[in-house]
């Protein structure tokens, strides 16, 4: 129990930073209705760009901004593949993600690159966990406030309409292709921000750091909905996704403490997401009774 409590601040810091990724996933998955597989690649890309820019001597905040921008470009590429070249959404994201592996390797020159908090004025670091929590909270609050305002504007409303009903959106003169691209740019920008902060927090960037990031993002969004309910306003929904990420990392910490081998973590994450996403279907089978199940099979 003592060890668990000692680990808590670090777990919360990590959860909050991943919470920014969860907000990005909320934008693409929930608002845009786009299962965006780019995320795994753009998370690593954000980290790789940020770390290499820092090592190249750029100011840390400029480096982080560069991480956000490159991740935005990755989202834009997926958007082009889907909206202009009509490649299915999932495949568009997978193609970008796969391509990004090579690009991330090229950016870093090798599979991991360390960045020391002793040599650079990093924004967050595992060495200063309490400060990291405060800074992460500031980032989260700023992101939520900006998105809340943005999605209330004409352009933001157009993106929401596109995610809800493309037919209706086009009938109202909305360029749905452009809205999808813009939504992917915003979502991946947030993912890149999360990746750039995590790399600083851990003190290194890793080409594999984004593997399964989309699943963690989805888990956070779903946990947030299940725990806090979904009948809230937009800002609150974004906040619950961040809390979902924190809860996710607390749960992971608990099962690790209980002795689960870390090799099994990805299986655990995948199972959590699969289970929660299956709940609506399971409920409807339950309600429609066994006859329905028999007819379906």
């Amino acid at each position: 129990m003592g060890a668990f409590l000692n680990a808590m601040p670090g777990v919360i810091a990590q959860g909050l930073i991943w919470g920014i990724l969860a907000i990005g996933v909320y934008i693409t998955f929930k608002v845009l209705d786009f299962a965006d597989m780019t995320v795994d690649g753009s998370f690593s890309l954000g980290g790789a760009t940020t770390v290499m820019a820092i090592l190249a001597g750029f100011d840390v905040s400029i480096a982080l901004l560069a991480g956000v921008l490159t991740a935005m470009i990755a989202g834009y590429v997926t958007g082009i593949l889907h909206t202009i070249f009509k490649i299915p959404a999932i495949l568009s994201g997978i193609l970008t993600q796969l391509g990004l592996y090579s690009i991330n390797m090229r950016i870093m020159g090798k599979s991991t690159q360390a960045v020391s908090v002793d040599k650079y004025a990093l924004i967050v670091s595992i060495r200063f966990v309490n400060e990291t929590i405060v800074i992460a909270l500031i980032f989260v609050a700023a992101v939520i406030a900006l998105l809340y305002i943005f999605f209330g504007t004409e352009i933001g409303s157009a993106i929401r309409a596109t995610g809800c009903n493309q037919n209706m959106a086009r009938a109202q003169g909305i360029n749905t292709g452009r809205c999808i691209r813009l939504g992917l740019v915003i979502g991946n920008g947030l993912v890149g921000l999360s990746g750039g902060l995590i790399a600083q927090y851990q003190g290194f960037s890793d080409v594999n750091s984004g593997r399964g990031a989309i699943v963690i993002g989805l888990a956070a969004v779903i946990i947030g909905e299940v725990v806090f309910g979904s009948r809230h306003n937009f800002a609150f929904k974004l906040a619950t996704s961040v809390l979902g990420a924190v809860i996710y990392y607390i749960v992971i910490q608990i099962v690790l403490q209980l002795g689960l081998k870390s090799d099994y973590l990805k299986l655990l994450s995948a199972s959590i997401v699969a289970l929660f996403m299956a709940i609506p279907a399971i409920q409807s089978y339950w309600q429609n009774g066994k006859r329905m199940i028999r007819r379906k099979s």
Partner: protein
Amino acid sequence: MLEIKNLKKTFNKGTINEKAALTGVSLTLNDGDFCTIIGGNGAGKSTILNAIAGVWPVDSGSIVLNGHDITWLPEHKRAKYIGRVFQDPMMGTAATMQIDENLALAARRGQSRFLKPGTTEAERTHYVDLLRSLDLGLEDRLTSKVGLLSGGQRQAITLLMASLKKPDLLLLDEHTAALDPKTAKKVLDLSDLIIQENQLTALMVTHNMKDAIAHGNRLIMMSDGNIIYDVSGEEKENLQVTDLLHKFEEAGSSDAVNDRLVLN
């Protein structure tokens, strides 16, 4: 004025599912014309409306609306000139957005969208008045999600959205077919009212011959991807359902008379 010339569209060209859905349709509507369209299943009624709205590109022909050649304009660009209500009440509104947000999206049809507020306070007061005029009790539900409304309420709102910014052309594709008779009548009356008040040019597809006769100043009948009968003015006013049945028989086409045609 709407001028359609020799419009052709074949689906699934070169496959066994090839279907010539429009076989050279020409049609001219004058400003203020309210034209009803009848015809059997698969006659091409929805196809002509979709061609005008730009859901997919046509094969050949031209569509000119008030002097603008819109034949090759993408769907979202011609939306500037066209208001639409669909058969499926789910299709015309964004279910997860509020009533006022849906209306505000429609109020900006054809305009560039910026980082300005998506809905303003002045707009909301205006919307409350409009909703009150519908007499469906929606004036108190401005911030309700549209997904919570009934099919009839959604169609009424879609109608409002289609006319909020006066369109050069209103397209109604069996927009009352999914509603119960009482609600259908209400939405149809509302359509009449909106078309009259705003002096809109409109095309309305219906399966109900009586409705087709009772509404509008012009009626066209489609069969096998073309117009086979076109009446207006006094001749249309004196039209009887039996006359239409005759026409269907004359046409003698496979899709002319079938179960979905409502006779009374």
